[in-house]
Each structure stands twice: as structure tokens, then as C-alpha cells.
């Protein structure tokens, strides 16, 4: 087939990108070469719209061993141990085919982690669906949850935390972000940089089929009414093969055979081979006849662009082929020497002894397009003035009931009960808490992880929203007693070709950068997903932040359940009464305008660090951060989990009671302390200038809100627990 501009455009390339290819090659590419360019230069693989802005994120720190640019980020957790982690999106495929889309998202992120030599020890996910009333929502939710469970459960990796939200902006584009943490010895980390000439290039794992061809290109475009036609671009996962691949790779990694290793994820053999060559500043030669194929008569084009799952590419030391083959034979996996490293700095492909492609590697990588897209700055919306008469008419108990049973607050147990969260025997904090926590096997340490996003805040004011998500991640780690170390981000946005959406991206990234820099909470890995858009409608900007922290002594871990009657609950951080963009404003007042709550990074850092100090001294019996829904929601959850009540004292705060209970001011926590420790705790809080007040005293049962309002624990439970399971049955 003769390649021309139209064929290039059909491959998702722009006209001037095609011209650039011809210029760089000094000739017209053949179809296989064009396929390779389209795979490497799409948004998903090249980050062409985002690179310029991502550069601004803080990525370094004392604990950072590897920042962005590798398969995943790596942080130091002392004693020679390191945690490898990353979050990645699988949004487009999950909307087209929820089970396989979500399953392969989980499979892909786990591969990214074990490619670096780490055994996956925890999975998390952030999933977002359209309005509950939308006809597709139920099936998509069911399919995605089954898919995530189907893959993670079979792999034997616990799913320890997650986040689920519903918003009509996801009606046509759901989000599925999967995160994995792996554990590795610091001196046994593997990288994707090839080195040395004439080293054998090995293909291991599943056979290559015709599935997922152009998957990455599909994920780089908006949806329209022809979406069903895209089903064949969704990959099909086989967690059993991945489990074998994991064990085989870790077995091979325990020796000294591997020079470089890279999983075949988006754009399959194309991106894996090119990335390894590019990082090593080498050439690579592949004989495509040697690639194990599942189907007959596959063309070079199909072999290079297939996104069949559970495959790895390895550059081995010379003479180690037999050792390696024996391991993969034991695990019943394909193993083939398909090529070698060269000094040509080209990627050269052969098929039936003929050269079918020859492209200088640097053209594909360094010369890939980069755009400084136009973007529009957002203004901070004006504050709404809510009249006291309106607030005074509301009954606190009715409001609490509505908010606790709201789809974005209520218990997600229906979801996480379908994930194996206890396999590996180290899960010490299950889903449903502020962070999931797993012990570092055989040590006194534990790792905490949480995943957060606040699309509503980001939509109202992207810069503030970006900061807020990082701050919330930080608070969720603090609340379990973990020292926050680093984050990974998954940036889900609409089309970068629209100024508004690009503006949301640029300013969210700026907010993320500011907060992570201030909190010394660097970004070590991540991914960008643009074009979460159907026709002209994009999603609300949804950056998901995955935070990881360390608990040095796991017996000091904190959970949110109230522990002891007669203990006191303190509110840390100031309640100003910010109602705009709160769940209360949206669900009770039906008010969608106004600015999100302000994020004061000094207070975030100071409050968080002081709480860690209190935890370290043993003063904190339970803790929970105050976020979506506000103060009363936070204490309700603590009562429900601890099966205890609270008598709330009359607030000395001058704001309206409703504002006091439902405002979403940032930088706040609830902590439980013993009466006997109050003096010492107060001293430490005052010394650090941390704003605090007493919320109330823990009782046997019933939440007594004021002299007129009492809610029993059973009532709280029924508000909180039933919505999702009823919705799904």
C-alpha cells in the first residue's frame, strides 16, 4: 500500500505531522513505518500537548530514587527497601468494554511495576461514572468493578483503597485509573535503558494477536456515535498469564542476566523496543518472523501495533539465553530471541528476510511533536451570599441524612467487597479508611497509600483544585499516621485542542506543582489522559493523585473508628464556613457556582506535621480528615466505624450552625484524645500555632448534635450504608 497524507490522517496524525515525518525521513514512509510513527506520536505515548507543562512539576527529593520517565517512580523507604509506584488511566477502553478495559488497566499498571523488579503489594483505583440516572451507569460500574476484581484478585495482589464518584460530566466518558505499589530492594531495581552491542533482545509472555491494534491511538481521540466500531481496539486480558509472567520475571531478576527490561503496554512492541533503544542511545534490530504469534498471516504492521497483553521485552547479557529460557519454560510462557542491539541508532525490522522498516530512533522520540497549545485562564468565581434565613429553615438531621446517603459520600463497600483486599497477609488497613495500609512483609514498617480527586473544585477553579487534591492526599496519609513521601498523578481532561480544557489542564498542573513543592511531596510518576470527551462535551477536569507514605512502626498506625467512651474529639484547623462548591451547596441548595474552598499550604503543612508529632507521642487514638461533606459527615463516619456516639458541645464559633457542620474548609482533621492527655496535647498544638477546638465527648451511643437533635448510630448506619447496594440490586 502506497502511503499518502490521507492514510496518515486516518492514522490520527495531523497533516503537518505527516509532512514532518517525510522531511525527517527524507522519503515517504511505508505503511509499517507510518503505523510506528502514528503509535509513537499520538497523544497517549508522546505527551505532545502536556510535556511542556509537566516539566514544571517538582520531581526530585531526598527520598526519590527514580522520578518520571521510567516505567514507574521509585522512592526510598529505608533499610535498603524501596517502593515502586504509578497510576495510569484506562478510560477510553473501559467505556467501550468495561470488563476488559478495566481489567487490562489493572494488568498494565502491575506490569509497569514488576518490570522494575518490584513485587506488587497493593492496588488502588479511582473510578468515575456518569449520573446514577444515566442508563449506562449501572452496567459500566458493574463491568468495571468486575474487571478490576477479576484481574487483581487472580494476581493475588490486594486492592487496598480507592475512590468512586458519580457526576453527569462522565456520562459519555467514564474514568478508570489504576494504581499499583510494588516492593523492591534498592539495589535490585531494573530499568529500561538498553546497553551494549549485539546483546540478544528477548520476547517473553503471551503470544501476539490482532487485539488492541491502535489502542493508544483510540485513547488519543474523542468519542462520537461510531464508538461501537472501536471495540476491536480494546485489549483482552489474561491475569493467569500475567501471574506466571510476574513469577517468571522475578525469578529471572534474582540472577544477573538482565540488562534492560520493558513491558509491552500502549503501542506494544513498537514503543517498548524504541524506548529501550532510545534510552540506551543504541539501535535495535528485530526479526518479526521470530515473534510468537497467536494468529496466522500477521503482517509486520499488525505485529508492531498489536497491544496483546502480558508481554515483555528484555535485553539479556550474552550467553544467558539458556538460563532465561529454562525459567520461562518452567512457567509455560513463550520465549524467543527476536533480535539484537546494534550501533546503527536505527530501529530496523525484518520480515521474510526483507527489511520492512528502518527509522532513526531519535526521530521517533526526540523529534516527536510538542505543542504549546493555546489555553484560557480561569477566573476565581465570586462568592455566593447565602442568606441565614435559608439556612435556618433547614433541619440538621434531614440534611445529614441526605448528605450521608449521597452517592459521592455513602459507603462503597459493595465495590471493595468484590476486591480481594487481604491476600498476601499484610493488609492492616482495609478499604473504607483514609488510606489503605500494608505492612512491608517481615518488617515493622508499613506503607500507606491513598487516591484522591476533586473534580468539582478543579472545575470551579483549576488552580485551587489542583492544590486541594494534593493537600487531600497528604491529609489522608497523615490521618493513618504515615509520613507522606511522594505522589503519582493521573491527569484526566477533555480535549487539549479546546482552550478551556487546555486551560484547566495547565492550571491544575500548576496547582499540583505548587502544593507538592510546598509540602515536599514530589511527583515521581504519572500519566495524562486527554480527549475524555464525547463530541463537544468534555469531562470535569479530574486529576487523580495517588499518595504514598511510610509508617515506621506499624503498631502506631491510626484508624478513624472512635476508640473509647469519654475520650474527647478535637477539631484541628479552622472552620470558616466555606459553603460554595460543597456537597451541601450542590445537593441541598442546588447551587453550583462559587469558588472552591481556599487552600492554605502553610496550614496544611503545619497542621499535618503537628498531628504526626502527636501520633508519634501516642496521644492520638483515632483520626480522620474533614473533606467532602464537612465536619458532621466526618464525625458520623468515625461514629459508624467505631460503633460509638458523641455528644457535640455547643460551638463557640460565630458562624451559622449549618455552615459550621457542612462547610468544606480545608486543612482540617478530627482527632480523638484521652482527657488525661488534653493538657499536653493542647500545649503542643498551641506551641505550633495550630488552630483547634473541642467538638465533643465520645459516648456509648447516639450522636447528640444539639439540644433538639439526636441521631442514633443505627440511623447513621442506615443513611450511610444502603445507597450503593440498593442502586446495584
Amino acid at each position, binding site marked *: 500500500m502506497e502511503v499518502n497524507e490521507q492514510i496518515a490522517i486516518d492514522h490520527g496524525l495531523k497533516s503537518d505531522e505527516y509532512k514532518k515525518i517525510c522531511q525527517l525521513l527524507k522519503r515517504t514512509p511505508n505503511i509499517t513505518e507510518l503505523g510506528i510513527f502514528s503509535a509513537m506520536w499520538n497523544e497517549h505515548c508522546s505527551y505532545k500537548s502536556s510535556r511542556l507543562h509537566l516539566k514544571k512539576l517538582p520531581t526530585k527529593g531526598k527520598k526519590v530514587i527514580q522520578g518520571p520517565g521510567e516505567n514507574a517512580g521509585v522512592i526510598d523507604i529505608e533499610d535498603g527497601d524501596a517502593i515502586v509506584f504509578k497510576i495510569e488511566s484506562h478510560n477510553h477502553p473501559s467505556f467501550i468494554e468495561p470488563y476488559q478495559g478495566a481489567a487490562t488497566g489493572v494488568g498494565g499498571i502491575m506490569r509497569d511495576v514488576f518490570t522494575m523488579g518490584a513485587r506488587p503489594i497493593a492496588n488502588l483505583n479511582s473510578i468515575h461514572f456518569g449520573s446514577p440516572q444515566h442508563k449506562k451507569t449501572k452496567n459500566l460500574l458493574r463491568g468495571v468493578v*468486575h474487571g478490576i*476484581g*477479576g484481574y487483581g*484478585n*487472580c*494476581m*493475588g495482589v490486594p486492592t487496598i483503597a480507592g475512590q468512586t464518584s458519580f457526576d453527569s460530566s462522565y456520562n459519555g466518558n467514564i474514568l478508570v485509573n489504576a494504581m499499583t505499589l510494588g516492593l523492591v530492594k534498592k539495589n535490585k531495581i531494573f530499568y529500561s535503558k538498553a546497553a551494549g552491542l549485539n546483546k540478544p533482545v528477548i520476547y517473553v509472555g503471551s503470544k501476539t494477536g490482532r487485539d488492541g491494534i491502535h489502542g493508544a491511538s483510540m485513547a488519543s481521540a474523542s468519542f462520537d456515535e461510531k464508538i461501537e466500531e472501536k471495540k476491536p481496539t480494546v485489549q483482552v486480558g*489474561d*491475569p*493467569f*498469564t500475567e*501471574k*506466571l509472567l510476574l513469577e517468571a520475571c522475578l525469578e529471572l531478576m534474582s540472577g544477573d542476566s538482565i540488562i534492560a527490561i520493558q513491558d509491552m503496554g500502549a503501542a506494544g512492541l513498537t514503543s517498548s523496543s524504541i524506548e529501550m533503544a532510545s534510552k540506551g542511545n543504541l539501535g535495535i534490530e528485530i526479526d518479526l518472523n521470530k515473534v510468537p504469534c497467536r494468529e496466522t498471516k500477521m503482517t509486520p504492521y499488525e505485529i508492531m501495533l498489536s497491544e496483546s497483553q502480558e508481554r515483555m521485552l528484555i535485553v539479556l547479557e550474552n550467553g544467558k539465553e539458556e538460563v532465561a529460557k529454562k525459567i520461562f519454560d518452567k*512457567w*509455560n510462557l513463550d520465549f524467543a530471541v527476536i533480535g539484537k542491539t546494534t550501533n546503527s541508532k536505527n530501529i530496523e525490522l525484518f520480515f521474510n528476510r526483507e527489511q520492512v522498516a528502518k527509522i532513526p530512533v531519535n526521530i521517533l522520540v526526540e523529534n516527536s511533536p510538542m505543542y504549546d497549545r493555546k489555553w484560557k485562564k480561569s477566573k476565581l468565581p465570586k462568592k455566593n451570599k447565602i442568606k441565614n434565613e435559608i439556612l435556618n429553615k433547614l433541619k440538621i438531621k434531614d440534611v445529614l441524612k441526605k448528605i450521608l446517603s449521597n452517592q459521592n459520600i455513602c459507603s462503597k463497600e459493595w465495590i*471493595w*467487597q*468484590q*476486591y*480481594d*483486599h*487481604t*491476600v*498476601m*497477609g*499484610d*493488609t*492492616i488497613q482495609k478499604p473504607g479508611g483514609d488510606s489503605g495500609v500494608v*505492612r512491608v512483609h517481615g518488617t515493622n514498617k508499613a506503607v500507606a497509600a491513598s487516591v484522591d480527586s476533586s473534580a468539582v473544585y478543579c472545575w470551579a477553579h483549576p488552580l485551587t483544585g489542583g492544590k486541594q487534591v494534593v493537600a487531600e492526599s497528604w491529609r489522608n496519609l497523615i490521618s493513618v499516621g504515615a509520613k507522606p513521601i511522594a505522589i503519582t498523578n493521573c491527569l484526566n481532561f477533555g480535549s487539549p485542542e479546546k482552550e478551556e480544557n487546555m486551560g484547566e489542564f495547565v492550571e491544575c498542573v500548576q496547582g499540583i506543582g505548587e502544593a507538592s513543592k510546598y509540602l515536599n511531596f514530589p511527583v515521581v510518576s504519572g500519566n495524562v489522559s486527554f480527549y475524555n470527551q464525547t463530541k463537544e462535551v468534555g469531562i470535569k477536569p479530574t486529576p487523580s493523585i495517588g499518595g504514598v507514605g511510610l509508617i515506621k512502626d*506499624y*503498631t502506631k498506625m491510626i484508624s478513624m473508628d472512635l476508640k473509647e467512651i469519654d475520650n474527647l474529639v478535637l477539631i484541628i484547623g479552622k472552620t470558616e464556613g466555606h459553603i460554595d462548591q460543597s456537597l451541601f451547596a450542590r445537593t441541598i441548595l442546588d447551587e453550583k457556582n462559587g469558588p472552591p474552598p481556599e487552600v492554605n499550604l502553610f496550614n496544611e503543612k503545619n497542621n499535618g506535621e503537628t498531628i504526626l508529632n502527636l501520633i508519634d507521642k501516642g496521644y492520638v487514638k483515632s483520626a480522620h480528615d474533614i473533606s467532602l461533606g464537612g465536619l458532621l459527615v466526618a464525625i458520623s463516619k468515625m461514629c459508624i466505624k467505631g460503633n460509638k456516639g458523641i455528644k457535640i458541645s455547643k460551638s463557640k464559633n460565630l458562624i451559622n450552625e449549618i455552615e459550621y457542620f457542612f462547610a468544606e474548609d480545608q486543612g482540617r482533621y478530627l482527632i480523638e484524645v484521652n482527657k488525661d492527655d488534653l493538657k499536653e496535647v493542647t500545649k503542643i498544638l498551641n506551641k505550633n500555632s495550630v488552630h483547634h477546638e473541642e467538638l465533643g465527648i465520645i459516648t456509648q451511643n447516639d450522636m447528640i448534635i444539639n439540644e433538639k437533635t439526636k441521631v442514633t448510630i443505627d440511623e447513621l448506619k442506615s443513611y450511610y450504608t444502603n445507597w450503593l447496594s440498593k442502586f446495584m440490586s
Partner: protein
Amino acid sequence: MKSSVITFPGSNCDRDMDVALKKFGFNNKMVWHDDNELPKSDLVVLPGGFSYGDYLRCGSMASKSKIMQSVINFAKSGGLVMGICNGFQILVETGLVPGVLLRNKYLEFICKNVFVKLDNKENTYFKNLNKDILEFHIAHNEGNYFCTKDQLKEIKDNNQIAIYYCNKEGKIEDQYNPNGSIKNIAGIFNKEKNVLGMMPHPERMIDQSLSGEDGSIFFKNLINNIK
């Protein structure tokens, strides 16, 4: 006391079981499914997981693995064989214990703590246990135990029902049945009571920091009974 845990391709609770057995004093060995011979053992455990990806039917391919002939012989000669979760599924596929395990009633994987009631302490597994109700943990998609009426009568007559799903107080009722198992059955013995298959994972309950400690009680008692 010597124990062996069999690793099949796709097993994923083999390490957890190894950790648990060692914690309570077993000298445990991991045995590869493709081996011919079992090492000398006082207890053989078929662990949980997704052997052979659960393809065909859960446990069916593993039941034909090379090592299984030795395991079957060991069981038939009176040796203790315990199958947990996928191990239980493998046991029913070998025919060492009667019945089958179907997909959970609500067609969903389920991971949570449950209470189980012991029905029969006249065996090495539960003899001398000072509790009748244990809090265990389940994590499975196919734990819905089923057998024919005749089989049910036979296993009842032979006291082969090991544990039932129940509530905290030991009430065995439908609402405490997580997966639709016939008669709330969570685990059964072979006729001779040396082979035990059960869905719950005692190895996930061996530490107060985890889901609970009733697994510790189970393993401590087990090793004392074997001694």
C-alpha cells in the same frame, strides 16, 4: 511437624500459608506442581488462588497435576490433606471430598470476615478446640457448595460437615450465608476426616493487626493435635 504446601501455576495464597504454618511451628516445604514425589509430610496443604487461571472449571486442571497423584495416595493412606478456597475446589475435583463448588449466588466475588460454626470435633483438625464459633475470612467467587440430596444425606450421616456459615452467636441462617451454599456449608471432610476442604482462609487471621486471630487458634490447635 512437617508440612508441604503445593504451588500450582496461579496459586496465590501459597506464600501466606507458608508464613502461617511456619509461624505456628511447622517445618514447611513448598512443593512444585510438576514434581512427582511429596516430601515426607504430616500435613499437605492445597492453597488458595486461581490454579491454571480457573480455566475449564475451578480446580479441575490442578486436580490432574503431576503431584496430585502423590497427594491422593497420601490422603488415601490416611495422611492429613487440607484444601483452602481454591484448594477446596481442587479437592472436590479429585473426588477426595464429595460435592461441587458453584459460582456465588449473587454472581460476585466476595471478600470479608465471616463466622463459622464447627460441627464436628472428632477429628485432628478441630479436636480440643475451646471455641465452637470462629471468625474466619473468605475471598472467593466460586464458594457456593452444592451436592445432591443423596450426597447430603450421606455426608450428614457420616458427620462430614466441618463448618457452617453462621452469625456471631452461632445461628446458622440464610442471611448469614454469603454465597448460597447448601445448608450454609463452608467446609467438609472426607468420610475418614483426614481430608478437609473449606472456603475460609485461616491463614489470613493469624495476627491482631490483620482481620483477626481465630486463625492463630486454629493453627496452634492443629499442630498440637498432630504432635
